[in-house]
């Protein structure tokens, strides 16, 4: 008898697609109910979107001023309190939001967390990647306690939206919130490009680009394709791009339909971030680069010549 509570990820009044992917994962547990929890200062629009996701039983909202920004220290006690209302599972997406929040919830509840669920074997048994995705471990959580898990969003398609109209309920929680953390500023790259975590097409650059300036050719190609821009850790560490573009074991795990890796050698830690992509294209001047072992299409040559040519040809 499983009852799943999914913590909704949202920003600027819009629900993040990661929530619908969590719903798909929750369905595999064959839960009796799948509820979505929206913590926000103005939850109505977000809750409305969540209520339309196929498979959602109910949407709970907790509306308070402190919830205006997603701070783990503020959200966690509220989710922990909500979870105690008979839930067996608490899910969050394995995104920056969910990774920040979920372990804090687990510790408040005194339970272990399963990170990056990629497959459901049973209500308390899951598969998850370890060692940069080189190995998969099957873990079993104790059945007599709440389970907190983050869902590897790249492993699940988003549940469809439209036909459902789940009831939306305001949830009253009597929870003391800490005052040791406050939101100061969100410095987010403002971009018309699609969000990297959810994009259907991604163009990524690696260290071979050589400079932040050279990344212009990546951005240009991405814009031509209507794609998001990503990068390898090497490019991020070298300062060519901001860190929220990082794709890989310790960056974002994505599953676009099309992934173009430019000047990326294909270290295993990067591949684990893209292995669920539909089609992988690689451009690299080193024919021995490991990326070519995994790419569906490969082009060996100088990216500074090839990428502009490619962009022109589109």
């Amino acid at each position: 008898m499983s009852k799943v509570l999914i913590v909704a990820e949202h920003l600027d009044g819009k629900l993040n697609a990661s929530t619908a992917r969590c719903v798909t994962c929750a369905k595999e547990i064959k839960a009796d109910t799948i509820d979505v929890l929206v913590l926000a200062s103005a939850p109505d629009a977000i809750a409305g979107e969540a209520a339309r996701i196929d498979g959602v039983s109910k949407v709970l909202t907790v509306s308070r001023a402190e919830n205006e920004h997603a701070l783990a220290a503020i959200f966690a006690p509220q989710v922990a309190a909500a979870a105690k209302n008979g839930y067996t599972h608490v899910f969050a997406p394995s995104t920056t939001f969910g990774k920040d929040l979920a372990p804090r919830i687990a510790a408040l509840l005194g339970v272990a967390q399963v990170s990056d669920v990629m497959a459901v074997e049973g209500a308390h048994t899951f598969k998850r990647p370890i060692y940069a995705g080189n190995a998969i471990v099957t873990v079993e959580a104790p059945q007599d306690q709440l389970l907190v898990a983050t869902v590897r969003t790249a492993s699940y398609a988003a549940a469809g939206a439209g036909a459902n109209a789940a009831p939306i309920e305001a949830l009253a929680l009597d929870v003391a919130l800490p005052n040791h953390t406050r939101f100061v500023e969100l410095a987010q790259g403002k971009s018309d490009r699609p969000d990297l975590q959810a994009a259907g097409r991604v163009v990524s650059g690696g260290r071979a680009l050589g400079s932040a300036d050279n990344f212009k050719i990546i951005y240009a190609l991405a814009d031509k394709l209507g794609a998001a821009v990503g990068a390898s850790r090497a490019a991020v560490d070298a300062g060519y791009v901001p860190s929220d573009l990082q794709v890989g074991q310790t960056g974002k795990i994505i599953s676009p339909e099309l992934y173009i890796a430019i000047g990326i050698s294909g270290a295993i830690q990067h591949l684990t971030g893209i292995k669920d992509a539909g089609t992988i294209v690689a451009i690299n001047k080193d024919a021995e680069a490991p990326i070519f072992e995994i790419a569906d299409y490969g082009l060996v040559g100088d990216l500074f010549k090839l990428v502009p040519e490619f962009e022109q040809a589109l």
Partner: protein
Amino acid sequence: MKILVAYKRVVDYNVRVQVKPDGSGVVTEGVKLSANPFDDIALEEALRLREKGVATDVIVVTIGPADAQPHIRNGLAMGANRAIHVVTTDAVQPLTAARVLRKLIEKEQPGIVLLGKQAIDDDCNQTGQMLAALWDRPQATFARGRCRARDDRSRSAGGDHDRSAPQRATLHQAAGHHEGEGEADRDVAAGGSWCRVRRSFEDGAVCGAGEAEQGCDGEGCAGPGCGAEGEGIVVGHTLTPRGGLTNMGWALAHRSATTVGQGPPYP
């Protein structure tokens, strides 16, 4: 102010792990073990804060088997003032690690705890956040860039979010980037004193009795049998994690059937 740095020993990131034939685990015997790369970055940041005068002491903590000594000594060689080795042969899951660190915090009273954002073996990315919850402190995850301390009471971490933590102690996780500075810039304090204690943890309780008996006050082992090099004081308990996840089976991953099998051979 003291900074506690969690310093985990993991399979080196360059190693291509193998799963045992019976699927009962990953092969770790005979395989190169190293400090978790993100913990190294956390340690570097701690040392940098010490150089700036924000902190006075950097203490590395490792939870692991007795043979992790060389790993711990490496933390000292990097420049930590002291090292604490909590000895256990059990696999340590994040909640247990967080509880151990919480207990050490009670004893050491650090101003800040720095951890790597995730361990590259289990890829859990939980311990820092769990510790923050147990300690009821702010957390700054995936932090990158320089840590700025405003008077010694608050810190903010740059990155995707800029959160100021008005309290004294902030939990902070070091992400991928650190600026390379010459080795000459750092004081390398080799041979700092360290205590090796085995403690019993039942739901995170530390045996206070053991500590008092051995006279380990953490400043330098004052108990019998403890030399300047800090030979260990063994209290003789074991770490017994409870209620965690049970690992049931391991398998090698491979890319989906539509493309080439196992992924690149590793140099």
